[in-house]
């Protein structure tokens, strides 16, 4: 049973007086433990689709189910709750909090998700262990390499056990070798913990670690 099911998602934005249709009836499902690559040229609607299935944006029409729960587009006030429970994000720019250490970055995400105190610290430590960065727990992001930052971002996304992991160009700011290492780690963790992983990318290497490749163009999925 898919952990995420998107049916006929449509989204348009106003640009000046024009209405631009960014997504034109996209349907997509993600299975637990499945790694999916979403490829497409710039402006094809990748990020918009990612924002909608990540419950950051609401679609104009279509249905979205996450972990069996229908996401009501009219109740945008409920989106943060769904994000807390079910979604983990990894960003191209890492988006770590510069003032927080590696451990605190993960712990803070757990705090937002409702886990506090020693329990949050322990879970954050476990997440850092999984990405092999226990020895960098007290480092600030500025003292870490790009690869290390991305691994912390992955640990943060894993924290709280969300069913769906969404990654936006996670290797774009890494060199080729480091990018491959990150992708392998990401895939291994997704498989090991039975999470659905969707990676939005331009990077051909992502295909190698994906179970499925989905292409999007002009707001439509091609296959």
């Amino acid at each position, binding site marked *: 049973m898919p952990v995420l099911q998107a049916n006929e998602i449509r989204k348009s934005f106003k640009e000046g007086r024009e209405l631009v249709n960014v997504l034109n009836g996209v349907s997509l499902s993600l299975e637990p433990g499945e790694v999916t690559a979403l490829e497409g040229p710039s402006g094809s609607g990748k990020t918009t689709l990612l924002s909608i299935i990540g419950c950051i944006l609401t679609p104009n029409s279509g249905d979205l189910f996450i972990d069996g729960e229908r996401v009501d587009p009219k109740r945008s006030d409920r989106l943060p*709750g769904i994000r807390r429970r079910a979604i983990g994000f990894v960003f191209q720019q890492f988006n770590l909090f510069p003032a*927080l250490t590696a451990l605190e970055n993960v712990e803070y995400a757990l705090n937002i998700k409702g886990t506090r105190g020693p329990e949050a610290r322990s879970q954050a430590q476990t997440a850092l262990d999984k990405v092999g960065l226990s020895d960098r727990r007290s480092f600030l992001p500025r003292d870490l390499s790009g690869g290390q930052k991305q691994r912390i971002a992955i640990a943060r996304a894993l924290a709280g056990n969300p069913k769906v992991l969404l990654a936006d160009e996670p290797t774009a700011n890494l060199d080729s070798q480091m990018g491959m290492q990150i992708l392998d780690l990401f895939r291994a963790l997704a498989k090991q913990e039975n999470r659905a992983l969707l990676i939005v990318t331009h990077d051909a290497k992502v295909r190698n670690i994906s179970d499925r490749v989905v292409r999007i163009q002009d707001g439509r999925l091609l296959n």
Partner: protein
Amino acid sequence: MVDLARKNLLHDKLRFAITISGVAFAVTLVLVQIGLFLGLLDNATITIERIPADFWVTSKNTPNVDFAHTFPDSRVQRVRSVPGVQTADNLIVQFMNVALPSGAEESTVVYALENFERWGLPWKVVQGNVSDLRRGAYVFLDASAAKRFGPFELGDYREFAGSRLKIIGVTKEARSFTTTPLSFMDFDLAQRVFTNLSNRASYILVKLAPGADPEAVRAEIRRRLPFNDVFTRREWASRSRNYWIISTGLGLNMFITVFLGCLVGVVVVAQTLYTSTMEHLKEFGTVKAIGGGNSDIYGILARQATISALVGFVFGAIPSYLMSTLIARADLKLIIPPALWTGVFVGTIVMCLGAALISFRKVASIDPALVFRT
């Protein structure tokens, strides 16, 4: 819980220092300005507070204790005969020119009574014996006069309104609202020295007999002296204070200075918090993306504003406290009562939270999708 607010605030130490400086400046400005004003107001009513009179009989519409208008001194007899009055004495309060050895002239406010001990004046005697005042052409001078009149010692002579008087005592803390030093001399002597005061008095001080009905006594004094006013000590002090606060515009002046101080604080805090918010916009977007709501971000901003307020208050309060010693050397009083500390403390927090509101508005409109932008 990881304290993102505090860590973000302290991460940029320069900006934090600027914020704190702004708050501390506003706090110091407000505390010192109001403290000085309270010090001046204290001077304005210090004799009223120190003299244990139940009623002050004044000329009609006398605005404050320093600007007295005189009336016949025989009226005191009419007051003394009112049932319920235990004691009633004439008091002269009069600005007088003092000729200095240098040839210059300075002012003093003379307080003249027949019996100083009875009315507790002067309240802080450094040198001399007050009971000696009635023995001749003598005067007690406040130590603060040294600044205006030049150094003086017991036994020195000074010319008060053309009459040579011997200084036989020194007092402390006896200054008027305008920081003019007070002098104390015998009632008859004052009437002789200042010819306009012949058979005149500025006030009648009234002490009630135990068990007397104050309102009945006041009504009777009013009936007998229809061309005078009768005030309780509290009313008279309040009237004297209000004269300086309202009639002279000094209150408005102080209000404007305090307002400007607060405005500086608000602008500095608002600007630094807003700039900080703008620079951390993507972080706030990330907070939203990982499941945080606007309330989480409002919490961060409010906490940052509160921390800025607390630290800024401490850094503003310490110099204000230390300044009171320096200001005392300049013969000024800085009075910061507990209520003022509390008020400024609460005001600082409100000011900083108010300054954060502009950032709240910005944060409310953050599009979490900005986390995907490079």
